[in-house]
């Protein structure tokens, strides 16, 4: 299962990077969203999959899955949500002010040369 998940993560990363290299601001943010999904799944996979019961002591199981990666992912999800929402609003505002979402038109160099 870990092998399959590694491939899934790799495909998520590929798609994310391809989107981030595109021109449109929206696609870049979608790319970051995919990238964070990939990273979270990677943490979970590296912690080991399906080795026991859910990490609740009420289960009274002999073996539980590793709770530490889950805690780490939970923190990461919240942080990436905060950052993504900030970016989204930033993109929205730059739309309003600058009238474009094309990264090639948002280059800063030309007008200062």
């Amino acid at each position, binding site marked *: 299962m870990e092998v399959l998940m590694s491939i899934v993560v790799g495909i998520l*990363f590929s798609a994310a990077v391809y989107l981030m290299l595109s021109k449109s601001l*929206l696609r870049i943010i979608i790319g970051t969203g995919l990238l964070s999904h990939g990273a979270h799944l990677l943490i979970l996979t590296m912690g080991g999959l399906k080795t026991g019961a*859910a990490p609740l*002591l009420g289960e009274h199981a002999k073996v539980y899955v590793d*709770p530490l990666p889950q805690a780490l992912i*939970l*923190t990461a999800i919240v942080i990436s949500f905060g950052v993504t929402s900030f970016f989204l609003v930033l993109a929205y*505002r730059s739309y309003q002010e600058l009238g474009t979402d094309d990264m090639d038109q948002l*280059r800063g160099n030309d007008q200062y040369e």
Partner: protein
Amino acid sequence: MSYLHLAILAPLLFSIFIPFFYKIFRRIHTGWFVLPLPIILFIYFLTFIPITSNQKTIIESLNWIPSLGINFTAKVDGLGLLFALLITGIGALVVLYSIYYLAKDKEKLNTFYVYLLLFMGAMLGVVLSDNLIVMYAFWELTSFSSFLLIGYWYERDKSRYGAQKSMLITVFGGLAMLCGIILLYIMTGTFSITEIVPQSNEIFHHALFIPALLCILLGAFTKSAQFPFYIWLPDAMEAPTPVSAYLHSATMVKAGIYLVARFTPVFGESSVWFWLVAGVGMITLIWGSVFAVKQTDLKSILAFSTVSQLGLIMSLLGVGAAALHYEALDDNIFTVATTAAIFHLINHATFKGSLFMAAGIIDHETGTRDIHKLGGLMHVMPITFTISMIGAFSMAGLPPFNGFLSKEMFFTAMVHVTEMDIFNLETWGVLFPVIAWFASVFTFIYCMILVFKTFMGKYQPEKLGKKPHEAPIGMLISPIILVSLVIIFGLFPNLLSDSLISPAMAAVLPSLLQVGGVFEVHITFWHGLTIELFMTMGVIIMGLILYKTYPKWKKIYKAIPEKLSINGFYDGTIERSQSVSNKLMNMNMNGSIRSYLAYIFAFLIIILSTTLIWKNAFKLDTSNVSSIGVYEVVLAIFVMVGSISILFVKSRMTSIILLGAVGYTVSLFYVLFRAPDLALTQLVIETISVALFLVCFYHLPKLRKFETRLTFKLTNALISFGVGAVVTAIALSAHSNKLFSSISQYYVENTYEEAAGKNMVNVILVDFRGFDTLFEITVLAIAALGIYSMIKLRLNRGKEG
């Protein structure tokens, strides 16, 4: 803090007060306040002569950074004292000259004298410091103050060009010298020259010997305007003439000579040293003298002649170092080269200083320095003519002036080179007297041009800027003193031999002296009918012939293309390095985030994949993996298809929804992989995110009606595929290389006992690792505040700030 330290620092400290003198005493020329200082210092340094002529040295140390072995150690020996006397003596004369040369109401005298005093203090520091780091600090201060002085008339383009050029070249050499000093420190463990010299044998066999030697010589050659670094000196002639006379003939350009002389006991036994110092000196000598003939500006002639004379001194020092190979002092005929070098050093300072001052007078009184416009000034300016003539004849090596004596000794030394039996000199040694003779012929020619083209020939008052007249007496005092020295040293050379030359030689060639021994220096006018005398006669005859026929053969110089000159090379290098780096930066830094991201990702791929391959780290071990279920396969296909199809959809709406689909599938993964809290959070957050995406992108004004498909780009595809592949490879290898087991057993055992909870994830979040959560809350708060202020705060462009 001894008097000696105070003497070195006095010019630096005194320079602080110059602007006050200038502001308060407007009616008195500021130079008068400066003048006493070099005179006092000169007299103070004269008191050391009895000590050094008894072969004693004085060392005074002052702690600066003792923990690094850097102390301000002042040391007075024969060599240092000779230079200190030159610096202060000519310094006093130059200050006196500048009082009459620079007008007090037109020039910014306050800055001039501040720079000049900075320079004087720095030079004293260079020649009297025993600690190499301290010497280096003063060395750079000389470069810096020289830069300021060359650019004194900073509103002129040429001054700025010359200042920049001299700065770049001398600082380049200075940094090389710093490398050499550090290498010496690595070899010997000390910065003190006095302590390095006894270790010269160990240094000689050290692997770093040659690099250290080259670095030190690079410093000396750039400072002393040796081939091919001489190019800054002719351009430094844009400085006021007192500066040229002081810095660029008598003192700063001799700092490199000083350095070579000072390091002769350390490096002198090496053949590399001999060939570099003597060889480069020879090339500089002939090159400078040949090109001096071509110049038409008085100061340019003098600049090239300085280059040539410095080459002469340098080659003599190189030849003198060969004397270290012949043990017995009694019949060691090769020390004559060192004697000649030191004697000529003094002579050059006297006649070149007077010639520069004379050139300055001519410029000042006629308004031009071009020898085509000058001529027939002998009757108008008889005193200046006498000064120039004595100076130039001394430089040409005519009797009875001091230049004759040092030129004779130069020939003697060069003839003796052919008798040496080391360093392949049996075959190559004959080049030395030949080059020396040819260079002397050219020296003779430009000296004649200097005097006769200026003072003889047709008087052309219509071409001159002003009506010429003799200079005021104050301006003439300094050159008169210098030319009288030229004559005195010429007639009574042994005035110098015991007091200055012999102690200086003891500092340059210490290993040849027995304890308590002295060099017997005896300079005579008449050696009998020797080969040197015939060489001098040959120089005069050949020089006269060539001078008379100069108009016929001067076209030869035009045959040398301008582009191949060293100046052309320097300018081209500066220009090309600027344009290349400009192009490079414009190419790299194109302002597009996409390219920067491409660089970053490509770098990531290259670094990670080479490490994986190089360390042979990729490993696939399936013994530790869990089984694959149907649900997981279905979900995996969902995620893969979903994420890839985002790349191909056209509308914003679809891609947002596809991203949401991927997010929900991920939360289903969390369910399958037994992470209930993650699944809950992911569901909620994915919902909110999709809503936000919709708010931002769906309800926006229709900017572009035509939504376009993502255009395919091969490089982007390669980069993104590479990132995915590298991540997968690293994930697989990392999973196959578990080095130790997880620490999570502790959490499983203690979640209830220690923390009174049954949900392990929640207990870790708020109890075991609660700090993470605290700052994650902070992140959310900051994001919320940031979003709020982004929306609310609308500063229009007009009233920004």
